[in-house]
């Protein structure tokens, strides 16, 4: 694992993959994700080639004739970053085989929001993982379609207010729980998959290293608040995600070829209400008579998920279902 020294050393070289000049909102957690992921790769000696799905990170970092990317970068469309990278990675293998290029340090990193991953992009991601392409897919999960203005996504949590499922007089916003995307990815089996959070950079960087060193598809979902639409103060992203971990809302775990591992086990948990009520996007729900009912449903869900994770960790210990891809 790169030490703090390595990372700091790298920061000082100014050879950043994701540089200044982007136009993401002040306080947005997405640029941290892009920075940490690429810093981790570069400090380990890899040369990142980046793909991005349409979304906030992409539209804010590549406004022609400017670009914030100091490494090769490709954006194709909203739903196809995984397919695009599978083409690039195939080209890389082909050109290496044929001796047309010599550089064996390239690592492909795809960035996408939750919309481009949970929903419209799921097919292309699933296909790319099943085919076993060697790439790292980073989902910066801000729980909604932010680029288009706070619409619900498959990741939007129950009871949250969004423009396509607003909390209204008759309906309490999003009625469904969010999809468990990492479980879906883990279901591909020949994969490394993990959750991460912006309040735990070292956990993320360690997982990033595992993902980079994994010979095959790797996936990390990092909870990355959108300060605008979560309606939280600009400087509170990491603080809020810390609470997400402490309330079991966002457990930190990883999956490697069938083996589950919980990477952070808080001694005491706070009620999920502490997390939810920090977010302005729940203000409207809290005024509704069914607020407690929904909170209870969420509490039961996160408790059950946590127990399930611990059980999975226990029964899969040292029992990978596959050893190679």
């Amino acid at each position, binding site marked *: 694992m790169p030490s703090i020294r390595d990372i700091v050393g790298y920061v000082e070289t100014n050879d950043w993959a994701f540089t200044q000049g982007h136009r993401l909102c002040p306080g947005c957690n997405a640029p941290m994700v892009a920075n940490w992921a690429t810093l981790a790769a570069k400090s380990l000696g890899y*040369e990142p*080639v980046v*793909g991005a799905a349409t979304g906030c990170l*992409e*539209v804010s970092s*590549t*406004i*022609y*004739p400017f*670009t914030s*990317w*100091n*490494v*090769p*970068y*490709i*954006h*194709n*469309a909203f*739903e*196809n970053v995984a*397919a*695009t*990278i*599978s*083409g*690039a*990675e*195939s*080209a*890389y*293998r*082909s*050109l290496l*085989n*044929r001796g*047309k*290029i010599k*550089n064996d*340090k*390239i690592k492909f990193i795809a960035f996408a929001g939750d919309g481009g991953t949970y929903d419209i992009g799921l*097919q*292309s991601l*699933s*296909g*790319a993982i*099943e*085919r076993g392409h060697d790439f790292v897919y980073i989902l910066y999960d801000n729980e909604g379609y932010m680029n288009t203005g706070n619409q619900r996504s498959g990741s939007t949590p129950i009871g949250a207010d969004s423009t396509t499922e607003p909390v209204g007089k008759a309906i309490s916003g999003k009625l469904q729980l969010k999809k468990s995307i990492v479980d879906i990815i883990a279901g591909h089996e020949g994969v490394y998959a993990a959750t991460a959070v912006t309040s735990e950079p070292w956990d993320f960087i360690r997982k990033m290293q595992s993902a980079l060193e994994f010979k095959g598809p790797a996936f990390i979902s990092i909870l990355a608040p959108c300060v605008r639409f979560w309606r939280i103060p600009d400087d509170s992203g990491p603080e809020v995600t810390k609470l997400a971990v402490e309330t079991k809302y966002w457990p930190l775990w990883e999956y490697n070829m069938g083996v589950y591992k919980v990477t952070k086990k808080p001694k005491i948990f706070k009620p999920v209400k502490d997390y939810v009520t920090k977010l302005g996007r729940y203000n409207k729900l809290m005024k509704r008579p069914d607020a407690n009912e929904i909170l209870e449903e969420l509490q039961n869900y996160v408790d059950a998920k946590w127990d399930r994770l611990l059980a999975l960790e226990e029964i899969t210990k040292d029992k990978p279902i596959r050893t190679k891809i």
Partner: protein
Amino acid sequence: MPVKLTVTGAAAVAHAMRQINPDVVAAYPITPQTPIVEYYAGFVSDGIVDTVMVPVESEHSAMSAVVGSAASGARTMTATAANGLALMSEIVYIAASYRLPIVMPIVNRALSGPINIHCDHSDAMMVRDSGWIQFFTENHQEAYDFTIMATKLAEKENVLLPVMVNLDGFITSHGVESFEMLDDEVVREFVGSWNPKYSLLNTKNPVTFGPLDLFDYYFEHHRQQEEAMKNAYKELPGVFEEFEKISGRRYDFLDLYKVDDADYIMIVMNSTASTAKYVVDQLREEGHKVGLVKPQVFTPFPKKQFQQVLNGRKGVVVLDRAMSFGKEAPLYSLVKSSLYEVASRPSLGSYIYGLGGRDTTPEMIREAFEDALQGNLSTDEQRYLGLRE
């Protein structure tokens, strides 16, 4: 030495691909394109080519992967038909705007719905404004030859546009016929190696592909695509000439059949031209001055060539294998607008034929010619061949 092979059109195209031996082929099967992918997968799995094959989960991903691969500087191909092309279409436009020299055989098939697996040109017409060069081919020989020429043209530095090579579903793709296959080395030398100026894999000189292109530049970029298309038009005669040197076969924008002294001309694309040539021969024997024009290059549209050939003729009938609902048929409307500037405009007739694989017989072709011969053409009327009214 060139050899004669008697195979399906799909096999002929697959052989062209084998000889080109692209770095990457990403594809998803759809009738009637499937045998091309299957033949190619066979070549890969037998080690006859060392292409990296990406058996994607959909055509949308096929075109997406092809964009990623071509942007990485790899010579890249795919193939599809109908609904596959429709599913790709979002990325088809992106491929052209990123100026990626991808080659894609299209085995023309009716675009649903209702679902139909047989030949017409509605798929190709759906993407006619996407910025791809479009060739249309009559038979196995042409499908093979144009696939090779497509690679050469696409990669010209002043062109850098993707190319579709259209061949008729089942009629060409599954029909067995002889064609002449060039030597592997001859083809390899003709297409040469591909060394793009920009590549996603060049970490020393990083490039951003596909940025957000707003009102301040988007327009100019599209203007550049138009310029590239103009360059393709200028480069084509050279490609035809070079290809003639290795094959002895001379191609042009338009294939002209017995047009020199013809008063009446039919225009039709792809395999139906063979039937039409047969009818032209019959009518010639009966003393009628008729001829046939078969466009081989549809985009960039060879307007000047059409003007030269059609100016001063008595009658011209245009056969379209696709409809453009509520508007004039696609080929017809382009031919008609080309004639606006000529000194002596012929009378014109528009005929729709063969939708969804409807058989097109010599009698039907003759019917259209007879309308012309009898002076019974109406510029404004869309007629149908072989349709039960």
